[in-house]
């Protein structure tokens, strides 16, 4: 008796899928597949660039306050306004905060990431990972509001102070409160970017260092930190740029007098209906961010964000 042979269903389905794929994208185009997969992302970037061109164009027209439309004539008046002393202060405040938040976040994130990666106990690792991810489920606005509840005049901290007979102190609606909120917001981003870099450092390198006589601090300074440099650079760039462009924390925790550039842009577009000024401030923000990141990449490589950056 002769049995007819049939391939398993899963195999046949795969064959059909392969034939369909070959019909849509012939094998001779295989070398272009990578570019095809890149297309959606490129399209998104393209749309962003188009938007940026429009914003750039808008920034070169003055607002006509009798029609609330931008005048036809080209003008640099928005750039003159956007580089006035007021906006210089706001830009300086944003850059200062970005530097401070990046420095504090890195100092806090590195040990966290190191312990999370190196902890011997799986439970410890999981606990640290959960503690890290939990804030991601809570949006930035809610977290900022949480700080209002904790640090407010009648908040948790001041309640403890007044219960102890001490006067309540003003802990929110100022620059330090904004920095605090931003550090808490940025910490998970930094840890997540540092963790892969630390994982990539073999424990044997640390053991070798110690076996050659280095103490823990020396090993950390001369082995761990240099080898984690790609992660430190990547995390710093992300934290710095996210802080530089942040809106919610200064808006909610700043009390209205510690605006960042993003708040000034919002005011330009919405509060005073001057898209020209908003656009000029946006262009300045993009330019400053791009120049700073380019300098960092040039001096220190692209870190974990790049594939062929300088090796430490």
């Amino acid at each position, binding site marked *: 008796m002769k049995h007819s042979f049939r391939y398993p269903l899963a195999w046949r389905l795969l064959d059909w899928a392969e034939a369909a794929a070959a019909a849509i994208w012939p094998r001779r185009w295989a070398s272009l597949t990578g570019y095809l997969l890149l297309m959606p992302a490129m399209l998104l970037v393209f749309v962003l660039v188009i938007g940026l061109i429009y914003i750039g164009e808008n920034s070169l027209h003055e607002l006509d306050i009798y029609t609330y439309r931008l005048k036809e004539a080209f003008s640099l008046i928005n750039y003159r306004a956007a580089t006035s002393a007021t906006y210089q202060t706001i830009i300086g405040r944003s850059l200062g905060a970005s530097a401070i938040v990046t420095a504090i976040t890195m100092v806090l994130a590195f040990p966290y990431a190191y312990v999370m990666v190196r902890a011997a106990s799986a439970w410890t690792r999981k606990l640290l990972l959960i503690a890290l991810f939990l804030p991601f489920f809570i949006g930035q606005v809610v977290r900022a509001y949480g700080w209002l509840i904790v640090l407010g005049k009648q908040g948790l901290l001041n309640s403890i102070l007044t219960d102890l007979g001490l006067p309540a102190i003003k802990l929110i609606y100022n620059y330090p409160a904004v920095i605090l909120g931003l550090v808490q917001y940025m910490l998970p981003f930094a840890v997540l970017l540092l963790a892969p870099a630390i994982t990539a450092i073999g424990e044997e390198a640390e053991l070798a260092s110690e076996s050659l006589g280095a103490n823990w601090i020396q090993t950390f300074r001369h082995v761990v930190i240099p080898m984690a440099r790609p992660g430190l650079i990547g995390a710093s760039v992300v934290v710095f740029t996210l802080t530089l462009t942040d809106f919610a924390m200064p808006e909610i925790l700043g009390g209205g007098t510690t605006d960042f550039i993003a708040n000034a842009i919002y005011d330009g577009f919405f*509060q005073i209906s001057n898209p020209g000024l908003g656009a000029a401030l946006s262009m300045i923000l993009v330019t400053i961010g791009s120049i700073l990141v380019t300098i960092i990449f040039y001096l220190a490589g692209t870190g974990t964000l790049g594939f062929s950056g300088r090796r430490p």
Partner: protein
Amino acid sequence: MTEKFSLEQPVNRRHFITRSAALMGGMMIAPRMAFASAPKKPKELIVRAWGGAWGDALKAGVADGFTKQTGIDVRLDFTEDNEIKPKIWAAVDQGRVPPIHVNWDTTTNATISALRGVTVDLSDLSNLRQLLPLAKPVGLEGYPLVNTYAYVYVCAYRPQAFPDGPPQSWTVMLDPKFKGRIALYDDGIGFNPVAVIAGGGTFADIPDNMEPGYAFYRKLKANNPLLGEDADFTNWFQNGEIDIACTISVNARAAKQNGIDVAWTVPKEGCKVDTDGLWVPKGLPENETYWAKQFVNHALTRDAQQKWCSLLGLPPVYPGIAPPPDLVNDVSYPTQAADFDKLLRVPSKALVENQPKWFAKFNEIFQG
């Protein structure tokens, strides 16, 4: 014999049921018959509103009555007034349908939109005729918007912080003991003319000489004021963050109604009085424009004005409506010419043309 319906005539049970049913049916149908020849009704109208006490008042005072009368649901959209403005402008410019049907807006912002040419003319609304002159937008042709009530940016304060009585002058804000416990709107709205007078200027200086106001702001900056929006003021009073603020009386009254110890006054320099209004954006389908206008028309009826404005605690543009009991003879509820004498009303034209300049200076002082 002709049977006449009379309340004096004895009515048997059968007649009573028949007539009651006819009367009820008539009452239900009558308002709908008024719109019998009207264009197709949309499923809902979207009306932009402010949240909190403001939105509640619009719903109870206007939207619910409109829905009852027309069967059209009204959805309130709480997008910030400054944020909806560019969205509507972009939609009209690009030939898209705007995101809302009716915009409840400040008169200044509404005037800006009218100058931009994105508002529908409301001159044919039947209820306009009965309103006070305040309803008519100044310096604009026709009715690209209609003002619906007046409001006052009062001096709201915590009585505990002022044991000697209400603040007599806005200059009390400069007292170091209130450092960090003062609040203004984050764009200076409502306070700019007051600042001019508190800074030694006069009302006649506005808008050409605002320097006394800027000088006052520079002094005030040393006292670290908080700058925020409507909702912030209620929260700040509630959380004990501030002692004194320049805010719309509605926010202070809402805080008081929520059990917060807040009072308000008009200091000797006066308070700014302004108006809000309703307008319909261009670019809606024809039938939706019609019903959006009917919504505005409904908001101008005596019933709607009375209920809406009483809930807000603001004087309506419909004449002869008594203030709510808690606001009789209240400084925040001007009804007589003498009441308005204590208030500062800057013409819309001056506000529209100067607001960006004032904001830039305000920003320069407080952010610089």
